[in-house]
């Protein structure tokens, strides 16, 4: 699999083939542009040892299908992602975050007919995290499926998720699923926004904030599992669900283990 390792705000190592082009620019805020010219898979590993700001741009050319796996770990990080997805291109993104604090902006442009994004974010919050995810359906028959799951047992999380389908872009589909597991619901927020200016579209959203169901905890504990271990097992389940086929399970479990300390 193609692989890029980013330390703080620059690329430390890249092992990619000719299907991927990388353009790196250093200025006040470093930026990395990654162009997918053919269908492929890419793993991006971020680690930060200091407060970091970074701009990342992903461009998928026409008819390209990409599985993008990201693991992000370390200090306070501010990242702005831009996605330019051309006609018939499809991006399947699986991102796991465990930074000390996180400020993330995702600007997703579905710029071609029949373009698609499946966006899966899993985050383990230590302090304050805020995500602004904006999906613009700029063409007909575009589709987006946004799935965000946050575990906020220590910190707090805000998900602002906006989907926009402008007039004329008929046949488009927009789906948002946001969930935050926390014992302190008052400190977490999910703000779903659906901005729809076209009749012939499908749009839905689902938002859940709260702790785990008492009856599920009872079920796990009735098999001898201590309450803390039961919560940990359920968190692992949430993080691993849908991701486990794309990452090695051990890799993710190590990641989660660090969160629990």
């Amino acid at each position, binding site marked *: 699999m193609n692989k890029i390792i980013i330390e703080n705000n620059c690329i430390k190592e890249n092992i990619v083939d000719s299907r991927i082009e990388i353009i790196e620019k250093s200025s006040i805020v470093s930026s990395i542009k990654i162009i997918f010219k053919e269908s492929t898979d890419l793993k991006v590993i971020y680690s930060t040892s200091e407060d970091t700001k970074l701009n990342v741009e992903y461009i998928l050319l026409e008819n390209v299908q990409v599985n993008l796996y990201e693991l992000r770990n370390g200090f306070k990080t501010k990242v702005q992602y831009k996605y330019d997805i051309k006609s018939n291109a499809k991006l399947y993104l699986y991102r796991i975050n465990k930074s000390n604090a996180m400020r993330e902006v995702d600007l997703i442009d579905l710029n071609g007919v029949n373009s698609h994004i499946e966006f899966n974010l899993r985050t383990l919050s230590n302090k304050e995290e805020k995500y602004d995810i904006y999906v613009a359906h700029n063409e007909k028959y575009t589709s987006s499926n946004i799935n965000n799951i946050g575990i906020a047992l220590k910190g707090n999380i805000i998900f602002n998720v906006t989907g926009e389908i402008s007039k004329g872009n008929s046949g488009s589909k927009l789906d948002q699923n946001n969930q935050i597991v926390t014992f302190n619901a008052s400190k977490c927020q999910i703000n779903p926004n659906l901005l729809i200016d076209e009749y012939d579209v499908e749009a839905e959203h689902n938002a859940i904030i709260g702790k785990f169901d008492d009856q599920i905890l*009872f079920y796990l504990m009735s098999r001898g*599992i201590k309450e803390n271990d039961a919560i940990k097992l359920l968190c692992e*389940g949430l993080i691993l*669900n849908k991701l486990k086929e794309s990452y090695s399970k051990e890799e993710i479990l190590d990641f989660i283990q660090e969160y629990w300390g």
Partner: protein
Amino acid sequence: MHTLKIVNLSVSIENKSILKDFNLTIKSGEIHAIMGPNGVGKSTLTKVIMGDKNYKVTSGEILFDDKDISLLNVSERANLGIFLGMQNPLEIDGVTNADFLRTALHSKMGKDFKLMPFIKELNANTDALGMNREMIHRSVNRGFSGGEKKKNEILQMYMLKPSIVMLDEIDSGLDVDALKVVGESVMKYYEKEKPAILLITHYQRLLDYIKPDFVHILIDGKIVMTKDFSLVKLIEEKGYDYFKNNDESETTIVA
């Protein structure tokens, strides 16, 4: 030899009284069946024994080997060897059966837990229950049929090896073939481990496979009659209304 003794237990939920001065003693090697109509407190009894915090114990004691377990939480009771096979086993997305059982056994055994013997035993028990091994790696009960969910409860029982087994309507939602597998599997476990078994059921059909030593009729939060297996026939003939209305039902008969 283990004993579970329930003494003058009264339980309520949201100020509604469910169990009233309930008494029952079950010992290793005994099979007890509690039968009764809907809403009389059968499932409540099993959940209270297991330690469900949604129910309030207003008086009485639950003793395991003469020690009061009222202050123990659910997992502590489970690790004493108390097991509840659920009426409606819950689905847990993302947590595989293997991870669930591995975590449970690790909690119970600590450093004595060994992965390879666990995998070997899990495969053998899955085969014995006629379950597909692929189900071990699927999310707990996710997409399982009613029969598969109940077999999964029995699989958990096989792996955890409890000494007190409570099975809450383990027969509900089962077709004839699945009922036979579940019933016979419980009896295989009984023959091998000789646990105390407490069955909750509405119907006689489960008792074709698991023959109880004691049958209790629960009406309105109390046992109104206890007899041997012959009581099942009487229930079939007369229905539960007979025990609500008949004077005979006011006297508990100990087998």
